[in-house]
């Protein structure tokens, strides 16, 4: 027979007298008054958000960004792997062939429409994991509120542009690992 020994601490006593009378502890309660009173003279630990923005971790997953190559071509080739990987089904990609007089990306095709529905996105980062060209990454921006749901559907132009709102980011050297673990083994 297996017997589990519990400690002789408070939990044990409560287990023994479950529902039974637990003796009142007036002195301990009075000490509690001292504890609450002392807190008045401490500085509150609240961070006053809109005035003070706490730095996010360098790999905090926020608003998406689409990237370009250095020669100006878009990295995205419209393969829709991100849309396939997305668990929230919030990415919509419509690809089109590159033509010599309209070359948008270095590959065969490019994304004519690239939309992310931010009201559905769960910021899991699977899209950047799935992308073979590192065309989409998750940035650090998290202030994404809008007054209308329609405004939360981010188009390709919005994702390609540099975000306007800047977010303080904590010291990268303190937190960031040089190579993400998933790229290390691929």
């Amino acid at each position, binding site marked *: 027979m297996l017997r589990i020994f519990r400690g002789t601490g408070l939990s044990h006593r409560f287990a023994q007298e479950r529902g039974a*009378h637990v003796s009142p502890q007036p002195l301990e*309660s009075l000490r*509690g*008054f001292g*504890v*609450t*009173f002392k*807190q*008045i003279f*401490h500085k*509150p*630990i*609240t961070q*006053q958000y809109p005035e003070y923005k706490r730095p996010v971790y360098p790999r905090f997953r926020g608003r998406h960004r689409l990237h370009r190559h250095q020669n100006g071509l878009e990295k995205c080739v419209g393969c829709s792997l991100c849309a396939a990987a997305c668990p929230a089904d919030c990415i919509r990609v419509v690809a089109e062939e590159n033509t010599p007089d309209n070359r948008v990306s270095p590959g065969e095709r490019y994304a004519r429409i690239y939309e992310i529905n931010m009201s559905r996105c769960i910021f899991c980062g699977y899209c950047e994991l799935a992308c073979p060209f590192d065309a989409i990454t998750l940035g650090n921006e998290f202030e994404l509120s809008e007054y209308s749901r329609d405004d939360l559907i981010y188009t390709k132009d919005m994702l390609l542009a540099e975000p306007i709102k800047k977010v303080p980011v904590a010291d990268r050297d303190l937190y960031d690992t040089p190579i993400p673990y998933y790229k290390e083994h691929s």
Partner: protein
Amino acid sequence: MSEPWWISAIKAFLIINLLLGMFAYMTWVERKVLGRMQLRYGPNRTGPFGLLQPIADLVKLIRKESFFPASAVDVLYIAAPVLSAFTALAAFSVIPFGAGWHIWKWDVSGVVVDVPISLVLLFALSSLGIYGFIVGGWASHSKYALLGSMRTCAQMVSYEVSLTFAVLGVVIMGHSLSLVDIVRTQHDTIWFIAPQFVGFLVFFIGGIAETNRPPFDLPEADTELVAGYHTEYSGMRFGLFQMGEYVNMITLSALSVTLFFGGWYGPWAPLGPLWFLIKLLLIIFVFMWIRATLPRLRYDQLMRFGWKVLLPVATINALVTAACVVAF
């Protein structure tokens, strides 16, 4: 001391407005004190130090739709918060706040109405106000509200007995049921907190239970009962309930100042109503302090404590006081 009726009317008007202002700013003070005790700031967005918060709350409550449950008992549902707020405000009328003044050719007493049985009147009014809570919860035809009402019934009945018994000692020592006389007696002899310390403890604990304050806030235990008896209330009807509750708390603090801490008399400088106000605010602070510190009692603990501890202690206190008064 006779004064024309219109002086009483003016005093009543002033006192009611002061009470309402105090109620509004007590919500602010309470949120600030609780916040600081929990290492938070409390309201600090509306105006300097969040001082406009009560006004913002008021505007919000007034503009909000007064929701009416389809199956509620309409007359009672509407009358309940009115009853609670009215009795709470009316009960304060017998609390003396000053020694009385002589202004031009009239004598102005320091109390709205000076009746010889003011203590009984006060308890009668505050008991009537409880009907508002009970009936309101029942009339809104909701399970949570009904549970809140049932708890109100049980708790109020249990603790009102102890509350009244605790006051008995003061009545015996003061030889009077008039609050003005009790204060005068205290001024001539000694503040009743010294000889009646046990009575004060019982009175204060019973008072916390009577005003539904934590740790006795079972009638509106928000973690169990949504909001207790006022679950189905919104808008200014809810505001009236809240008003009744806070004004009850002010009245009870004022009553303990009157009965145990020498009313408007201070230890030195004759400041009159200012002394009364200082003592009142201190006791209200203790109310908030208790709220920040103690967790809510379980229902059976509440009942056991009320009937098996508080009531015997209050009874013995009254008996011993009576014996001492007769003996000496």
